[in-house]
């Protein structure tokens, strides 16, 4: 009995250490964003000064809005294109389908540094150059495979007889998709969308390659700010982003669970 209790205690300790390893740096950073001293000096004194001055930092604010806009548009585009592609891959047999399917997934494994370099060269070559539009295109390209993977996985659980039943009742292709197929894969579409948002919003490497001084995203702007000299405003903005990202990830987890239950 005693050994069981010791093992249980060790198990708890392990979980605690694991969580501490994951979250301690983040918690310290979040705490420091409320500390008076800009140099991580203790004792801790509460202030919201850094949040207030963050509000005055036009460059950071502009970059934040850019990031949000790009992330939202990336999400919308990649969800629509990705879901449509998943449906096409699910429904139709065509020449080269296997090759196409196989080619959709390696981009997830290619390092972003390389993808970013390739995109920079390509966008210059075709005359798009750098800037927010280039960043948006790059993010959509990065996010699409994630959406297709998640939606396709959900479609694997879909019974093709459901579409056949809908057709036998007189539904055209559009009605079948909107009223039968889409409701079934909706949890996958939402999860894919959250992935796409996270890929875009957290994106640094590709954005860094494709941004210009005036047209940049938040992660790139933070990196630039740190190079100029660290200010606790970075802690503040990072804390806000962490809260938003974690909320998104929790939502994703929730939708994945939904997907498993049905």
């Amino acid at each position, binding site marked *: 009995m005693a050994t069981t209790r010791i093992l249980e205690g060790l198990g708890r300790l392990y979980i605690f250490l694991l969580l501490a390893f994951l979250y301690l740096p983040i918690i310290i950073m979040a705490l420091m964003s409320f500390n008076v001293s800009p140099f991580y000096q203790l004792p801790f004194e509460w202030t919201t000064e850094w949040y207030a001055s963050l509000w005055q930092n036009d460059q950071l604010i502009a970059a934040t809005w850019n990031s949000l806009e790009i992330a939202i548009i990336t999400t919308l585009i990649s969800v629509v294109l990705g879901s449509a592609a998943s449906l096409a891959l699910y429904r139709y047999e065509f020449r080269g389908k296997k090759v196409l399917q196989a080619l959709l997934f390696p981009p997830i494994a290619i390092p972003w540094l390389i993808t970013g370099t390739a995109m920079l060269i390509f966008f210059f070559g075709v005359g798009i150059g750098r800037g927010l539009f280039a960043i948006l295109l790059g993010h959509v390209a990065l996010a699409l495979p994630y959406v297709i993977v998640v939606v396709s996985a959900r479609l694997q659980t879909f019974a093709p007889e459901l579409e056949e039943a809908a057709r036998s*009742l*007189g539904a055209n292709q559009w009605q079948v998709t909107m009223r039968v197929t889409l409701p079934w894969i909706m949890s996958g579409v939402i999860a894919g969308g959250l992935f796409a948002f996270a890929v875009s919003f957290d994106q640094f490497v590709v954005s860094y390659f494709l941004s210009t001084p005036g047209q940049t995203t938040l992660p790139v702007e933070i990196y630039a700010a740190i190079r100029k000299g660290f200010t606790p405003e970075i802690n503040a903005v990072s804390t806000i982003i962490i809260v938003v990202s974690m909320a998104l990830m929790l939502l994703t987890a929730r939708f994945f669970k939904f997907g498993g239950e049905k």
Partner: protein
Amino acid sequence: MAGVQVSNVSRSFGAHKALDDVSIDFADGGFYALLGPSGSGKTTLLRQIAGFDFPDTGRISIGGESVERVPVEKRRIGMVFQNYALFPNMSVADNVAFGLSVRGEAKAMIAAEVQRALDLVQLGKLGGRRPHQLSGGQRQRVALARAIVTKPRVLLLDEPLGALDKALRVDMQIELKRIQREIGITTIFVTHDQEEALTMSDRIGILRDGRLVQEGPPEEIYDRPKSEFAATFLGDANIFRGDSTGNGIRLPDGTAIAAGAGDRLAAGAKASCAVRPERIRIGIDAGALDGDANMLKGQVSKRIFAGNNSTYFVERAGQTLKVIVQNTGADRLAEGQDVVLRWSPESTVLIATS
């Protein structure tokens, strides 16, 4: 409502001929079973009639209108799938309403029709449930209500009772037949269950390897099978093989078996005779079984008692014959007993060997 004509339909998938020159006339208002082992093409034929797949050659018409190139959504058919295929994201009522709703019918009309259809399948009170809250039999009824609410020209059923347990299946057979009579819809029903085909349908089509082997009323196919396959696939049959004597056969050992007066084949050709196990009388001495022309001697190798009847397996010249005897309280024969079998020429069907 409408009849369905399938004329010379063939369909291949690669090198595999799923349907090979099949022609069947499904009469208006009839209840038709397509029976065959798996891979016989019966489901392929049903999907051709539904419009999920088009024939390579041949014609299909519904109510006199050529439809072989019309997609399923425009054919105005109703279909019940093997696993019911109810929409999991919709309530029972919304499932049933689907066909009317995609047509853009008025809400009030839809609600009334859905209620009528649910009442017809005796699920009037369950409209608000979700499919996963229903039993297998209830799902089956919802699928049926959904298929008939749009007033289709023909009702297609793909092994609809296959997923139900035995007792429920018998209930649903009766129920399905009642509903079909009530609305008088032409019904085509795919099954591999011969008993289901016999009890439910007005006509049966037997398929094998993509070909229609025989088609007709259940009694006709059972009593007058045209091939060994039809004889053994629909019910049990003892098959004797030998040379035709014109109106019967002669077995290799010289024993003659006489067939019914109408059965004629050129003498000398290879031929078979089929006899149903329940048509054969069995006894210890030939005298007690007087009267029937066909007689064989054998030995009981096994007896299976099933309450209302017994099945005897009788060994005779290397062949095992099956005889089913009603339980009339008469003496039962022991295993190992030498017996005499007798049956009439009228109980014997002469079949050309292909």
